[in-house]
């Protein structure tokens, strides 16, 4: 049967991507600028305590953070694009990224240099941005919930962007403003064990929920009226799934800052490969996101002696991939 063969070829594709991710993760662990730029010799590590410490304490948590960040952005991006039927929507769209940016900038302004508070503020304001968007969408007296969400997302994002502008304007241009700017460019240089351990569990839990419900997540893309007669509670289930999609993004953004483009381009590439069914494309988008961020982050930390901001690299590689997809799109994933 053609349905069965499609299913098994997509399952094989997913296994292949997972294997590719594992290989890239392993390579990334040994890739860097110690003892010299390039691959660290794994056999020399046995007698090199500094090398061991670099791999275990610096590179391993960073590789894990990159994988989780990519999974969160790729997965959430796919869910957002499907539920808004729009390939130009990304996970920060419902006030999440502007919320995180505003929250962290506020924390830098109030408690300069205290990373824990910056992380906490980023989480609170990004989830706050989402909740505010969902609340506003509920009170708009119109039955088109999809459009209501678009309106509320624009309103909340603009509000936070205005707030961020004010903070930048009053921030100390010598100490605080550069810190805000650097945070907004995004990067995983601060992803050490103590910072990622507290978020691993909730992030994994949110991934698990999304993956378990991935067939139902397809219903988010239906017309509201059709979704209703298919037994999907648009006004309750939709915000719930969007919330679960955004938890990972908010928690990882609190460490990585604003990393653009991943949540936009990765779902588009994944749809080109796997089609629009969340059953296969949600896990594919998560794995592809992990591969994309891992490659970007490895280049970011290993290419030059100084760190290149991850957000800059992801935008560069993302826009180039976007160009390629736009020119050579075969299965019309756009």
């Amino acid at each position, binding site marked *: 049967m*053609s*349905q069965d063969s*499609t299913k098994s070829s997509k399952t094989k594709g997913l296994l292949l991507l997972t294997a590719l991710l594992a290989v890239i993760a392993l390579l990334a662990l040994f890739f860097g600028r110690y003892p010299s730029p390039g691959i660290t010799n794994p056999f020399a590590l046995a007698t090199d305590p500094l090398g061991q410490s670099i791999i275990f304490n610096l590179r391993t948590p960073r590789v894990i953070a990159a994988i989780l960040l990519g999974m969160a952005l790729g997965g959430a991006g796919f869910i957002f*694009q*499907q539920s808004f*039927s*729009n*390939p130009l929507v990304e996970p920060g769209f419902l006030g999440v990224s502007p919320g995180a940016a505003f929250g962290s900038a506020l924390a830098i302004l109030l408690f300069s240099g205290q990373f824990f508070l910056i992380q906490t503020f980023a989480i609170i304001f990004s989830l706050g941005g989402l909740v505010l968007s969902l609340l506003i969408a509920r009170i708009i*007296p119109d*039955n088109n919930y*999809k459009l209501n969400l678009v309106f509320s997302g624009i309103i909340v994002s603009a509000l936070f962007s205005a707030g961020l502008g004010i903070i930048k304007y009053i921030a100390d241009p010598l100490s605080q403003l550069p810190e805000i700017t650097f945070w907004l460019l995004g990067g995983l240089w601060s992803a050490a064990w103590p910072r990622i351990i507290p978020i691993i569990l909730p992030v994994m839990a949110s991934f698990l929920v999304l993956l*378990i*419900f991935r*067939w*139902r997540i*397809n*219903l988010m*893309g*239906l*017309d509201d*009226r*059709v979704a*209703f*007669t*298919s*037994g*999907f*509670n648009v006004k*309750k289930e939709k915000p719930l799934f969007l919330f679960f999609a955004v938890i990972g993004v908010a928690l990882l953004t609190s460490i990585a800052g604003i990393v653009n483009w991943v949540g936009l381009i990765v779902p588009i590439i994944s*749809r080109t490969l796997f*089609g*629009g*069914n969340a*059953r296969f494309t949600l896990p594919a988008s998560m794995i592809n996101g992990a591969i994309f961020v891992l490659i970007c982050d490895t280049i970011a930390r290993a290419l030059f002696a100084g760190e290149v901001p991850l957000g800059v690299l992801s935008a560069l590689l993302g826009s180039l991939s976007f160009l390629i997809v736009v020119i050579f799109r075969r*299965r*019309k*994933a756009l």
Partner: protein
Amino acid sequence: MIAIALQNVTFSYPDQKPIFETVNLRLFGNQVITLLGPNGSGKSTFIKLCMGFLAPTAGDILFNGDLPVKKVPVHQIGNYVAYVPQSESFPYHLSVFDYVLLGRTGKNRLIQMPTASDTAVAEEILRKIGIETFAERSLQELSGGEQQLVAFARALAQQAPFLFLDEIAAELDLKNTLQVLRLIRDLAADHTIIFSTHDPQIAEAISDSVILFSPNSEVIIGQPKELLTSQMLTKLYEIPSGIIRENPIQINWL
């Protein structure tokens, strides 16, 4: 057997004059019931009310004559109602087959993937409608008429007793129109089909009952023969009109 009953139903959109005022109707089961009326007379709103998507401003709508629609939990609505809207926004780049399979979601547990029997139902329905050849195509690649056929297939996959079809024949070519109308006629053996159209000739050909929606909020139900008269249609559409009954071609339609 009463399929759907409306008791003193009044409905108005916020800050607008009522579309329906104290409407009382009983729709009987295993029939094709056609909704006829000019643009903006409330046919689509009537469908949305009957399937529970909109709540009446006053009054009650009952499934099977005794179960208030508002008491049916949303996740069970699909066990009663399947729906094809006049036009719909389709899931983004889903294949036709996966979209039809989505119609089966309500039959399974919340986290369950479609089963082999769901796949079999979807395949059979695609064959029945004659669209099995584009099972793997993406929804966005289809023409308007093809999309309507696919939406009809998704609704049938639900195997719900009440089928609401809002102008399903609007974008179909002649062959597909006749094929769909024939299928609707067959389905009436064990479904209640509420079908809106702009074509009185179609209404005459397939309906057991007709509901007329006049611009002045009047709703009348009756047999096609008694309602689809030149006098009624002229009054309804405010232009001289009627149905050709003597044409022998028309008799062999379906």
